């Protein structure tokens, strides 16, 4: 037991140190990238605030003076890192609202979408995988293989449009866009979830087939354990040892790569926020959004590590013993 707690402490310490490093690196990279973007940042910010038609040289100068954009680059960077160290992310250059609020709002949106999508993918893919594994090579298995190829071949925007046309426009079951009602999350989450479910099904199927052939599952049978307990106590858990790290990778892809689907369904998530921040040169929001994404990925990896420790007590690195 104490060994496991020590392992847990090790994971948390390692990931904690990693997150600090990631925070600094991402901030600096973001800053440099924004500096290299073409065009006058003060002009773009002013346009974001007052609209394109109302911007002139004077407004841009006012913005420049107000935000200190004429200071040397290293001062601006130093100021931002200092603020970050005090956990003060500043205010949006465009809306003047605190960045924490702004990014927090979008982060919540992304997390909701990712969590529901992942849940859809796990339920759909997991069930298909377990069913396919009952008879490898049987009709269900072949159907599942076709499903995997099918959902991987359809790009998310096309799948999203098809779902909108069928479920929303034709059947009128769900709202097509928006963030207002709870049902608004279903279509974007389903679009993402179906796309992922194919590979989840494949990984689950292979893991379950392998575990079912293992000696400990056969021994569980001859011990006299009923089939459903063998499945619940031995097969599911050992298959999860393979599946959970895979779901972690999928979660990262979900968090990073949902821009298309967020845009399609006008879902207010981080991807959405990031695109707008780049467009309006809203450096604090941009940096905070990138930072949030980076830290989220570290957090997800930490969760996967902790779940792995809980599921599988075997040590990860082992010295050969006599």
């Amino acid at each position, binding site marked *: *037991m104490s060994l496991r707690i020590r392992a847990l402490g090790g994971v948390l310490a390692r990931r904690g140190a990693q997150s600090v490093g990631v925070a600094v690196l991402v901030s600096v990279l973001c800053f440099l990238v924004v500096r290299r973007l073409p065009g006058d940042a003060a002009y773009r910010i002013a346009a974001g605030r007052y609209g394109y038609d109302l911007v002139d040289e004077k407004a841009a100068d006012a913005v420049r003076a107000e935000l200190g954009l004429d200071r040397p680059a290293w001062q601006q960077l130093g100021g931002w890192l200092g603020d970050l160290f005090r956990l003060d992310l500043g205010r949006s250059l465009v809306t003047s609202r605190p960045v924490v609020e702004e990014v927090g709002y979008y982060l919540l949106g992304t997390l909701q979408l990712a969590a529901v999508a992942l849940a859809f993918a796990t339920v759909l893919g997991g069930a298909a995988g377990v069913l396919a594994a009952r008879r490898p090579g049987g009709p269900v298995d072949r159907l599942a293989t076709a499903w995997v190829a099918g959902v991987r071949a359809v790009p998310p925007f096309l799948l999203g449009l098809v779902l909108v046309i069928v479920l929303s426009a034709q059947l009128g079951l769900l709202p097509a866009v928006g963030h207002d009602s709870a049902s608004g999350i279903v279509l974007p989450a389903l679009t993402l979830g179906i796309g992922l479910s194919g590979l989840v099904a494949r990984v689950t199927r292979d893991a379950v087939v392998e575990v079912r052939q*293992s*000696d*400990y599952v*056969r*021994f*569980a*049978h*001859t*011990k*006299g*354990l009923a089939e459903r*307990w063998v499945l619940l*106590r*031995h097969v599911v*858990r*050992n298959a999860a*040892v393979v599946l959970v790290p895979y779901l972690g990778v999928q979660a990262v892809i979900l968090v990073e790569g949902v821009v298309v689907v967020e845009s399609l369904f006008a879902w207010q998530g981080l991807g959405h926020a990031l695109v707008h921040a780049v467009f309006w040169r809203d450096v604090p929001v941009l940096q905070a959004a990138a930072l949030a994404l980076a830290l989220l990925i570290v957090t997800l990896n930490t969760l996967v590590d902790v779940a792995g420790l809980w*599921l*599988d*007590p*075997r*040590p990860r690195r082992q*010295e*050969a*013993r*006599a």
Partner: protein
Amino acid sequence: MTETALVTDRGTDHALSVPRATVRHGTVTLVDVADLRIAPGRPLTIVGESGSGKSVLAHALMGTLPPELVAEGSMAIGPARFDLADRSGRRHLWGRELALLPQEPGLSLDPTMRVRAQVAEGARGWRPRDRAALRLADERLDHVGLAGSGAAYPHTLSGGMAQRVAYAAATIGGARILVVDEPSKGLDPASLDRLADLLAGHVADGGLLLTITHDLRLARRLGGEVLVMRDASVVEGGPADRVLTAPRHAYTERLVAAEPSRWRHAWTSPPTADRTAEPLVSARGISKSYGDHVLFRDLSLDIRAGERWAFTGPSGAGKTTLGNAVVGLASLDAGSVARHPATRGGRVQKLYQDPTSSFPRRVPLEGPLRDVLRRHGAGEDRLRSLLAHVGLPPEILRRRPGQVSGGELQRIAVVRAMLARPVLVFADEATSRLDLATQETTMDLLMTEVTGTGCALLLVTHDPALAAAVTEHRIELGQA
């Protein structure tokens, strides 16, 4: 008198008998036996080399044959009759009346679950979080000498301990008929003795015992009846002490002669090594411990060309670690190991205990062997002649590791090691998972190659008889 008669009567009633049993795979007959009978108090042990069909027979009786094997025949437990072709008909007996102690106990325990829960789930009327079953599991673990190990995970147990956990899990349901499948693989003599005591206890309590083994020492210890199987059928049967000391069938004679203490080969007399030659490996004052557990301390040794060394001792004594340290695969706490320049460039080769995990699983055997050919610039003819030496056709290399037997694979591992023209071969329990006859063939091939090339041998084994038959220098570890 009446009471004795009654007991005997009941005993007859509850015997297991098999009038006829056959198992086929396509057109190949794997098992064809008749008139087996196991009575309470009189264990039955089936011996024979791998591939003789003895394990298949055990699984046919359990009803756990893989789907591609077809069983025919019937068996009777007391008055109840069962059709061997019907797979599901005996499922309700599992754990309650008919129990199996599987091969490879280490793999038969779920790596993610504590030992106590795995034992408890075999109890009669088990429900999740069943306190009575958990208490019973603790009692059973106590009975097999593992009190206090209930919270352990399988990876922390030695092979012998895992074996006893599996025994507790298999018998907690109170099954009277216990089928034990190859229990001796990789076990050191002390662990095997403890297991034999448990099995004898099961018989003394009125249980029925069917043991499948290639270990004649275990068969002798268990006593009772012995059947010798070869090529799907029984060649000889009778009381254990008679069959294993005065065999009548030529095959049984060969089996008995395959025990290392009776080996007679051209290489059995030690070669005259040049004691003045520069040592290949020279260890000075080496020590290693894991935590408080001291494996060896201040040990010195010199291995010269042509010498044969054995490191022996029970599991966990550190003999593999010592071997690894000598060939440079493990780090040391103190001391130094100097290796002669002749050992560089892959001229030290290791043979592993489990050949299946020392070959890539999904690649035909040809791949890894050709890699060695390229690396060491050996010719195709050398590969062919080595294969011919170990009695394998070149076509076998098109198969994958899972498609050849353990003995064949270990012989291919010997070929792989010898392709590099080694000056030192380190055989780490390389034959401890093979049956006696296969062990002798494999060892004979290895030793013929080793002696022929003047290569030095380092043997790690828990079998003192094997060490005595093969080597002239021995270091024993783990002597408290």
